[in-house]
Each structure stands twice: as structure tokens, then as C-alpha cells.
């Protein structure tokens, strides 16, 4: 993939903000790919977890914010347990979701659960999903 790198204040702010929110040092990542190798949702993702963190390092915020991957992460922490650098990718994903347009539409909100489905679902999943994907 050919990318044009910019290193202006906007990029710097984006990277700093991700680090501040997630509490993770994104530059510790050396792209070994173990996070993506173990990720149960990798086959559904447009950008793999290691690609997300690489794009964050490069300050390519539009590409990261556009990715479907943010809403495919199940916060299962498999990547966290495997990363040799101790990075918790689930926290990086949550930080990126956090800075998505705050006035934008929910990626998934309570309105999307039909009454029939709500009758069948365990209560915890509705709370969890809205906590994760609604603003």
C-alpha cells in the first residue's frame, strides 16, 4: 500500500491522544504480527490489528477512523496475552472508537435490537454491546 506520510501537528495530536486514552505506548510495537495471528476476528477485518497500530504510529488517522475493524474487535484480549511488547490492542481499538466523531451515528445502538431478538438475548450482551459501540 502506497501512503503519503505527513508529520504535522494534527498527526502528532492524534498519536498523543491515542496514547493518552489507551495508556499504551504505540511505538513499542515492532510489527511482529502476533496480535493478528491470534485474533479470532481477523478474517472479517479490513485492517488487521497490527496494521491498525502501524497506521496509528504513522499518524494516518483517516485510514484508522474509517476501518471496519474498530467494530469487529470483540475485546477478547487474545492479542494482549500474546504481544511480546505487552501492548493491549483492545485498548488501542477502544481509544480509536473513543475519538470517532462524537456527534456521529452510533455504530450500534439499542434501537438496532428488535423486540423479538431482545427477548432471546442474554441481558449482559445488550449492555456490553451498547457500552462498546454506542456513544
Amino acid at each position: 500500500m502506497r501512503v503519503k506520510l505527513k508529520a504535522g501537528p494534527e498527526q502528532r495530536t492524534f498519536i498523543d491522544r491515542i496514547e493518552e486514552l489507551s495508556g499504551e505506548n504505540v511505538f513499542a510495537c515492532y510489527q511482529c504480527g502476533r496480535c493478528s495471528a491470534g485474533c479470532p476476528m481477523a478474517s472479517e477485518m479490513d485492517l488487521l490489528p497490527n496494521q491498525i497500530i502501524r497506521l496509528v504510529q504513522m499518524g494516518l488517522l483517516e485510514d484508522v477512523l474509517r476501518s471496519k475493524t474498530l467494530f469487529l474487535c470483540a475485546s477478547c484480549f487474545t492479542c494482549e496475552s500474546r504481544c511480546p511488547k505487552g501492548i493491549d490492542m483492545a485498548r488501542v481499538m477502544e481509544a480509536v472508537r473513543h475519538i470517532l466523531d462524537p456527534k456521529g451515528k452510533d455504530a450500534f445502538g439499542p434501537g438496532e435490537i428488535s423486540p423479538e431478538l431482545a427477548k432471546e438475548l442474554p441481558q449482559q450482551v445488550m449492555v456490553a454491546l451498547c457500552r462498546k459501540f454506542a456513544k
Partner: protein
Amino acid sequence: MKLHYYPGCTLKEKAVALDISTREAMKRLDVELVEPEGWTCCGAEYPLTEEKIVGLAAPIRVLRQVRDEGGEVLVTTCSFCFAVLKRANKALRDDPLKRKRINAFLRDDIQIDPLTKARTTDFEDYNGEVQVLHLLEYLRDRVGTPKIKSRLKRDLKGLAVAPYYGCRLLRPQEEMAFDEPDAPRVFEDFLEAVGCSAVDYAFKQECCGSYLSVSLPDAATEASYRVLRAAQMEGARAVTVTCPLCFYNMDSRQAAIKEKFLDFSGLPVLYFTQILAWALGVDREVLGLGEHAVPADSLFEEVPTTEVRT
């Protein structure tokens, strides 16, 4: 002996089987479970960014109540409740700033006694005093295998059961401190203590798709299939879980799994407490087997109901 127990919302609605079997089993181990008065939701998800700190208020409110009732230990069975309560508790123990902010937030709480209508508005700061334990840990560390064995009433004859840890019990290891994430033993040891044989298989700590089963059902169907199929290939007669969401993904959605994956022929899913209660002599009728989409009754028929000599 009395022990504080947090069932969580799902156990009062969709996973009544987990709640009832837990109570019945613990009674037979001389433990009376008490719920914290007026408990509320735990929040289900531990907030993963530093600014969503308000997500800590719900679990800490529950823990503060346990402490105020004189409880030192709180046990849970649902993996989601367990993870949120345990992580929030650790966050308050370790981080003075979180402690200060959450306690400041919770100082506005008002509690009204449903009977006397008395109002409580004065709460002491909570600093992580309670110890949060999963029931599997409690059984291992506080009850112990010898006692469980001495109370067994049924011989399960080494029924091959695959323990499923899923995502929430083991990780992040530093915070959950539950067991070794890559080679856990606590579930296996539990199964062996109650007379089953624990099936070793590759996917026991993989993800079942979790909450994506609602937003992206196909991905969860596939993730759950991988777990069930791996267990079946190793000879499991059932998979056992601690979490109502794992149960939903692997049991309620099994029809969808079978439709998509023709090599899979179906496998019952059980709550670990149903197995425990059964082994301890609880009647089949109170195990909540009617909640299962994949019938599990036959597993509870074939074992003879004679007393086990110990």
C-alpha cells in the same frame, strides 16, 4: 456459612439455570449464598480508556455494598460480571486518582430501604477492600477438592466434558490473576473433582464471538463452531461454560451453526454448576434443563443415581 454472591442481571432472566444450580450446589457444600441488598448492574464491560472512568461506578457500587454488609469475599459465576468486578476493584486498589474520582461520584448515592423507607446517604469511601472470586476459584481454594469429593452423591463415570474458558476469565492475566492463560488448569481440576474427565482441546480459551453475536452474527457463528467442533473432535460429550453469553452463542445459536457447517452434528452445552449440582445429588428437575436449545437431558439420565462410596 454465609457467602456474598453476585448473580448479575442475566442470571435472573435468561440464565436462571446457572443461578439455581449454583445455589443448590453450594447448599450441599454448606455455603449459603447471600446477595448484596439492592444490588444493581455491574456494567458488563470494563472501560478500556482512561476517560471512560464513569464505567467503574457501577461495579464499585456493588462492591461497596458488600463491604458495608460486612462481606470480605464476593463470588460470581458469570464471566462478564467477574471480569468487570475484579478489574474495577483492582483499579481502585492501585490507582489513587481513580479511587478519589469514583468515590466522589458515588458520594451522591441515595439508598432507600424497600421496607422501612429509611434513606441512607452517608457512604464510606470504598478502597478495594472486598476480594472478588470466581466460583471456580472459591471451589478450588476455599472449599477444596477433598470436601467436594466427600459430598458426591452420583458417579459421573468419567463423562468426557470439554471445559470452555472463553475470553473473560483468563485475560488480561495481570489483572484477572485467575490462571495461566495458555495452560489453565482450574476448570479441568474442577471437572475431575466432580468425577468427569476433562477433554483437552485447542480452542478452550478462544473467543466465542462474544457480543458480536448481535452485531455480526455470522462471525459469532463461525467462532462458536470452531470451539464446538474442536471439542467434539477430541471426544467431548458436552462443553461446559461459566458465562451466559458463551452459553447463548454455543447453545441457542447451534441451529445456525449446524446449518452453516454440515460436518458438525450438535453438542450439548452445560453450565459448570449444573454438573456440580448433579454430582452432589440435586434433582434433575431443578437443574434448569428446559433452558437448553440443544437437549442435554440424556447426559443426566445415563449416569446411575446411586450413592458414591468415598
